[in-house]
């Protein structure tokens, strides 16, 4: 079942919207023009995902859980499961709202295969992905690169400039990662807002070129 489309002009909700709290300040365009768009930030632990999301947006809490993920079957009464605990996984979630009604939703999740139940849902409809890498641990990015390549999700590689990163040329990194010549690779320091911002710009430019 897919949600029914609502006619923005005729919703009776509008009349009672006056008491919106500050948590929804970003969602001010109430005329149906508001657009929420996803950007994915992938990479291994400690590569700078949280730092990047925090540099350009306000990080909010968002948790998902490993056992409540399969939405494909019938309403499921799991008897006996009430006493069971489950592990929640924290995602990096940040919002970047623009005056024209567009809000970018940045989602960072751990890069290992075991978290890919989240990636499928996140990748659908997304602008694209930033694969953040640390040159000291290139292999941590292989799985994410494979995933986006196979899925056809536009992605760029952003090399976070930890100590020693500049000792490698982008060409060397491209060769080591074995990525397509058209996939952009950029250097960045995700602690800097401008640097994080230009990473996002490079991604959207790339998504536009391949659209």
């Amino acid at each position, binding site marked *: 079942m897919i949600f029914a489309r609502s006619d923005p002009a005729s919703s009776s909700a509008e009349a009672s919207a006056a008491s919106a709290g500050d948590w929804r300040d970003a969602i001010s365009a109430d005329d149906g023009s508001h657009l929420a768009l996803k950007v994915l930030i992938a990479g291994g632990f400690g590569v700078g995902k949280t730092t990047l999301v925090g540099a350009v947006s306000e990080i909010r809490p968002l948790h998902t859980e490993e056992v409540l993920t399969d939405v494909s079957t019938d309403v499921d009464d799991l008897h006996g499961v009430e006493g069971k605990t489950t592990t929640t996984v924290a995602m990096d979630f940040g919002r970047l709202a623009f005056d024209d009604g567009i809000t970018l939703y940045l989602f960072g999740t751990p890069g290992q295969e075991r978290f890919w139940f989240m990636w499928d849902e996140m990748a659908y409809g*997304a602008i694209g992905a930033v694969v953040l890498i640390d040159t000291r641990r290139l292999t941590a990015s292989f799985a994410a690169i494979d995933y986006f390549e196979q899925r056809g999700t536009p992605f760029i590689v952003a090399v976070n400039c930890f100590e020693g990163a500049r000792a490698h040329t982008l060409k060397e990194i491209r060769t080591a990662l074995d990525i397509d010549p058209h996939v952009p690779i950029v250097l960045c320091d995700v602690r800097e807002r401008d640097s994080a911002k230009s990473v996002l710009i490079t991604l959207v430019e790339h998504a536009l070129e391949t659209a």
Partner: protein
Amino acid sequence: MDSPRERRLNAEAGPLVRPYALTRGRTRVQGFRLDLVTMLVVTGRSPQERARLALEQQRILEMCRRPATVADLTSEMNLPLGVMHVLLADLYQQGLLEERRAAPLAERPSPEILQRVLDDLRAL
């Protein structure tokens, strides 16, 4: 193998929770697809049995007086995504919430939208 109670993922894992109480044990809803950026809004219909709505669901309806995304709602309610999914499915099936969509559902945003995002980011 670790028992569920003992299991901890790593530094990024959140606390252990018991999400099933709220959903009465349900973990999945048939065919009900919700994207993180699906925008939801109240239909304006009033619940038939208001008393049967969990406090959490009443709060969700309150927040959805204006369109809000699943990610926003989940974050604001501070509940795990799967639990929110079940609560939202209930509200939808009761005709209390509907989807608001400003652009057609598609695998990729249109070039026009991407260009707008690019202009927005450059002007930041």
